[in-house]
């Protein structure tokens, strides 16, 4: 459990630092740690999702050099919320995965903006939403769906092998 946690969260952070620049399209990079948190929360529940979100977000905050705790809090909330609702969601369908991740990223973006506003972050919401949050949300949706599909495929292969 601990190994999985460390591998996923730190692997996500490392992937974000290494692979994300390569995946950048028109200055938009996917939020790989968020995708990892979503996957972990869906599989391991709210407690695990919350902790994973906190650590992954904290790593991102430290790496970004901004206010530490913003992404840690928002990702922890996403992890907890999704972990709690995970049992009631049918996430194996791409039609659920893509819009789900898009909405989650949007929610995380809005939460981050609200939090930053509380701590006097001066940024116009419209531009932030149009040029940063929405494109990243769409990108996350597709990357996340691909990852969920890959994981489901791996699980099927494992089941067949056993």
């Amino acid at each position: 459990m601990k190994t999985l946690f460390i591998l996923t969260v730190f692997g996500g952070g490392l992937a974000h630092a290494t692979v994300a620049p390569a995946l950048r399209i028109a200055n938009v990079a996917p939020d790989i740690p968020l995708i990892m948190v979503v996957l972990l929360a869906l599989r391991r529940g709210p407690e695990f999702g919350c902790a994973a979100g906190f650590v992954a977000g904290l790593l991102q905050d430290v790496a970004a050099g901004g206010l530490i705790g913003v992404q840690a809090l928002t990702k922890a909330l996403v992890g907890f919320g999704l972990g709690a609702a995970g049992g009631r969601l049918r996430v194996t369908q791409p039609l659920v995965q893509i819009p789900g991740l898009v909405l989650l990223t949007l929610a995380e973006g809005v939460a981050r903006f609200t939090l930053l506003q509380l701590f006097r972050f001066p940024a116009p919401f419209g531009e932030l939403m149009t040029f940063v949050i929405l494109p990243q949300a769409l990108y996350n949706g597709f990357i996340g769906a691909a990852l969920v599909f890959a994981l489901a495929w791996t699980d099927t292969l494992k089941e067949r092998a056993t």
Partner: protein
Amino acid sequence: MQGVDGLEVGKVKMRGVLVLGTVVAACLLLLTVQTRGHSTPTAEALAFVTTPIQSGLARVNRAAVTVWATYLDWRNVRGENRRLREENQRLRVESLQVLETSTENDRLRRLLALQQRLPLTTVSAEIIAREWGGWVRSLTVNRGRGDNVARLTAVIAPEGLIGRVMEVRSGASVIQVLTDPASTVGAHAVRTRTAGIVEGDPRGTMRLKYMARDGGGIQVGDLVVTSGSGGVFPRGIPVGVVRAIDDRGSALFHYAVLAPVVDFARVDEVLLLTGDTRRDVAAAFAAGG
């Protein structure tokens, strides 16, 4: 039993809420500490902890970006290399085409110049087939019955004589080349005026058969031109250059091996002398036969 399960679920939920509460509290505390001012000891301690992590992550990020940039460069260089290779190949082909066109242009200019210099009626033709076996040596041109071409029409190139038309078809004619074993042409050496007959040879060469007592003075390098006797070929068209003398002692006829002035294997365009050929055309040729 159900009561115990319910208790367990409640405990788990409680633990989850506790984790969430702790996380939220920690985050808010962190944010508050940072926004209150940079000089507080807590903020200093936070910076002390986060700075090495930031440096490490920045290093990882920089390395990844460098690797990615190197990969992109390599991919670009490979693509550019492939593009340049293709361009190089295309330019080579184009260059060859230009060279070919230029050579053809030169040939046609020379043929046109000859056509204009000659005081004869001529028809230009393009060679469309070559028969180069030992038995027959012939060329086929794209002019035939419809172009006023008759049997035995003389065929020339800017360098000299090629042969005569032996067969006329509709749209094509077959030319017997001078090196054909059955070919004979009346000729004389320009320098000594020694008359003889140029015959084709099965080996693909030509020889001048002449009477020894009249032409003893023929030397290697002498130019041999048509004599005009027989009425088929105009007088003065270069035929060949003496390459060797076959001295047969006191025999009546001697032979001179000739090198053709025209490279029959390479000629592509020719002139057919379709009109009256009883003229001396030596002045029209560069060799000055």
